[in-house]
């Protein structure tokens, strides 16, 4: 493998691993906040127990999310010095503001966890809101750098020199809001469905009607509401994201849709595999005219095909598959979230059929896969550029060698971290059961948050 491919593999692996924890780290605080607010409103202890247990999950997964985030931030400089030399000059603001978001999250997370029993209820809410805002802001800001990579603004390169730098113009680049919005909204989907997964699994393991079963069913309903609302919002925002691609990165849209010929009344191809030889998508289902309508709100919108661009500038053609997988997961989650709410709230059924509970068990891993597909699509779909039409990936990569050895080392470390985080979560919750926490919550004077046997 070439050093460039190795560097991409190493950084891609780091990001693929980090985003699992980063996304859950953004999504969970909203779930905890919801539970805490529900508790303050209803005084139902079960919500306090949910907040406590989810906080523990959050604290454990931060143990991986923070160090892998640190790795990601530094690998940017170590593996892509050419890219960071440009970013440092033009787009330093998001990184810098992100630091403040980290600080807010770190300070108030410690306050919420380690001082929980010493601060007033309203201060607990303030701390949680601060954690949620800190986590959200860091996601929005770091995604802004990704948005800038697709729609760079605020500088020019003249004879290899960077001139005419307007840092705030770069910050508010055209796709900032729509791209970061997409990442933020989808993180809340993941947070919700990860909870849904565990709750559904526990419902299968406990007798229907038991106290623990009811607790998990309550948690499942909270996550279906949050998950449903945010998957719908993400879909609306996703539509806008695609229109931005149409305007700003047409070759990426063409690769996403497997479209080779520029045309009006372009069809939308769902599924299938893009085939370069025949210039078509094999085994896909074509919806006539739909792509033109989605891209520009009218059937005679002209959508550019890949043949309009030199082949050296084409993103990899598997982008179509990734794009479809992402959209597919998102759509499925909307259906199952609202399906469940309909079943319980409108049809007033008191229990879910077993197969549906299994679907909810699968929903968390599905949601995580959805964001993996989305990120891999977003980043490979931008190739061969790190900064669209400004800087290529080959120009960005380090001139150092020996990346293969580092790749092996880092993969090993991620494997150790993945194994141990799962082990720690299993172990902790096996020793601190829902029943234990419910008992603690009922006894006055026994600390709930400080409890840790």
């Amino acid at each position, binding site marked *: 493998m070439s050093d460039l491919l190795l560097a991409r593999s190493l950084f891609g692996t780091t990001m693929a691993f980090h985003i699992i924890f980063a996304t859950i780290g953004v999504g969970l605080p909203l779930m905890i906040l919801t539970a805490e607010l529900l508790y303050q409103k209803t005084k139902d202890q079960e919500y306090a127990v949910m907040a406590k247990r989810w906080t*523990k999950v959050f*604290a454990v997964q931060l*143990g991986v999310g*923070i*160090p892998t985030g*640190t*790795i990601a*931030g*530094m*690998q940017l*400089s*170590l*593996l*892509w*010095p*050419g890219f*960071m*030399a440009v*970013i*440092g*000059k033009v787009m*330093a*603001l998001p*990184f*810098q*503001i*992100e*630091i*403040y978001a*980290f*600080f*807010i999250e*770190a*300070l*108030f997370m*410690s*306050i919420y*966890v*380690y*001082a929980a029993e010493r601060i007033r209820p309203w201060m607990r809410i303030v701390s949680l809101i601060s954690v949620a805002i800190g986590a959200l802001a860091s996601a929005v800001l770091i995604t802004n750098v990704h948005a800038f990579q697709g729609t760079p603004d605020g500088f020019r390169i003249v004879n290899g020199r*960077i001139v005419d*730098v307007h*840092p*705030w113009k770069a910050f508010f680049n055209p796709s900032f809001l729509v791209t970061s919005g997409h990442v933020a909204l989808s993180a809340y989907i993941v947070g919700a469905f990860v909870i849904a997964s565990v709750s559904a699994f526990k419902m299968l393991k406990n007798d229907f009607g038991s106290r623990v079963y009811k607790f998990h069913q309550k948690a499942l309903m909270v996550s279906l509401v949050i998950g449903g609302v945010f998957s719908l919002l993400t879909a609306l925002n996703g539509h806008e994201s695609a229109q931005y691609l149409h305007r700003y990165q047409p070759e990426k849209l063409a690769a996403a849709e497997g479209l080779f010929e520029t045309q009006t009344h372009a069809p939308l191809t769902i599924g299938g595999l893009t085939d370069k030889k025949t210039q078509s998508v094999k085994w896909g289902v074509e919806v006539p005219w739909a792509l033109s309508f989605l891209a520009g709100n009218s059937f005679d919108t002209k959508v550019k095909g890949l043949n309009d661009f030199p082949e050296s500038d084409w993103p990899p053609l598997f982008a179509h598959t990734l794009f479809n997988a992402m959209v597919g997961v998102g759509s499925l989650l909307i259906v199952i979230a609202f399906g469940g709410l309909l079943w319980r709230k409108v049809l007033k059924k008191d229990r879910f059929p077993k197969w549906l509970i299994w679907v909810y068990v699968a929903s968390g891993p599905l949601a995580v896969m959805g964001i993996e597909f989305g990120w891999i699509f977003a980043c490979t779909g931008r190739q061969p550029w790190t900064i669209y039409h400004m800087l290529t990936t080959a120009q960005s990569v*380090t*001139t*150092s060698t020996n*990346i293969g050895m*580092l790749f092996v*080392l*880092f993969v090993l*470390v991620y494997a150790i*971290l993945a194994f*141990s*985080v799962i*082990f*720690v979560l299993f172990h*902790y919750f096996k020793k601190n059961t829902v029943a234990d926490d419910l008992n603690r919550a009922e006894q006055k004077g026994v600390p709930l948050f*400080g409890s*840790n046997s």
Partner: protein
Amino acid sequence: MSDVYLAVTILWGFVFIYAVMATMDFGAGFWSMIYINHSKTKATTVANRYLSPTWEVTNTFVVALVVAVYSMFPKGAYTLGTVLLIPGSLILILLAIRSAFLVFSHFVSEYEKILIYISGITGILIPGLLISVLPITHGNFVYVTGGKEILDLAGLFSSPNEYAFFGFAISSTLFLSSLLLADYSKASEELDAYKVYRRDAIILGPISLLMAVFIMLTLKTESGWLYNKMMDNFPFLLLSLLFFLIGGLGLFLPSGKVKGKPRLSVIAVTLQYLAASYVYGRAHLPYIVYPYVTVHSAFTDPASFHAVFIMYIAGFVILFPGFIYFWSLFMNDKRYLRRRKANQSPE
């Protein structure tokens, strides 16, 4: 002050703050491992009580430091990023294991010991590797061939100066953290732990000073330019020594039930390191990586710097009350410091 010097002062400030916080952080992790079987003295408990709420905040400073380098000196980040690929990756791997296992140790009591051992040992190596960035920037081990910058790792690890820095980092880590924990245990009224940490500080202080002298001696032969420029500010080095002596004195002053005023020592020793790092930093100017990259050649676009600088001020104003509140909850709240065994589990 010109933009460039303003920028490098901010950067130096971050380096110093992170250096002090990191030594306390990694040191506390190490001590909590060393005294894990001394349950009577509570030395481990005190170390964990400090460490649990602070490690995440400390970790943010290292990210802040790296961001400060690439946002203010992008060309410097380019060269450093290129030559630090191997040592930087090693630091990251150790840091990941250390942080993760530190967190995990609070959640699985059966495996607490082994996890604290792993995080303690990996943690104590990190300052040694981090400080190696300094001898690398002295330029003796960086080569440019065919436009590529290359680090001579074998050369680096056969240099006495590198080992002087390595030893200095580890002894300083242990020295500063034992001082801080002495102060922290006294405030917590854990007098047995206080005696332990006071003793450690008394042993380690002279060792770290010796290491500093060793750095100067090896620097003289390996990077004469830096040595000479540091000696231009000899009075500040003497001032640093004076603070060291005041710090030492602080541990022997009479005060109530037990000997020593550790708060005075912590402040004096922090000033000792501040004075010494000022001399080092000043002499290092204008080079970021000698002789290839200077603060002038590496400086960012002025418009970018102005935006970044304004954000530094805004961020400081927003965050300062948060830091004060945090400090009052974990460093200064008697309920937190003096809680008894019954509910003192660190998480």
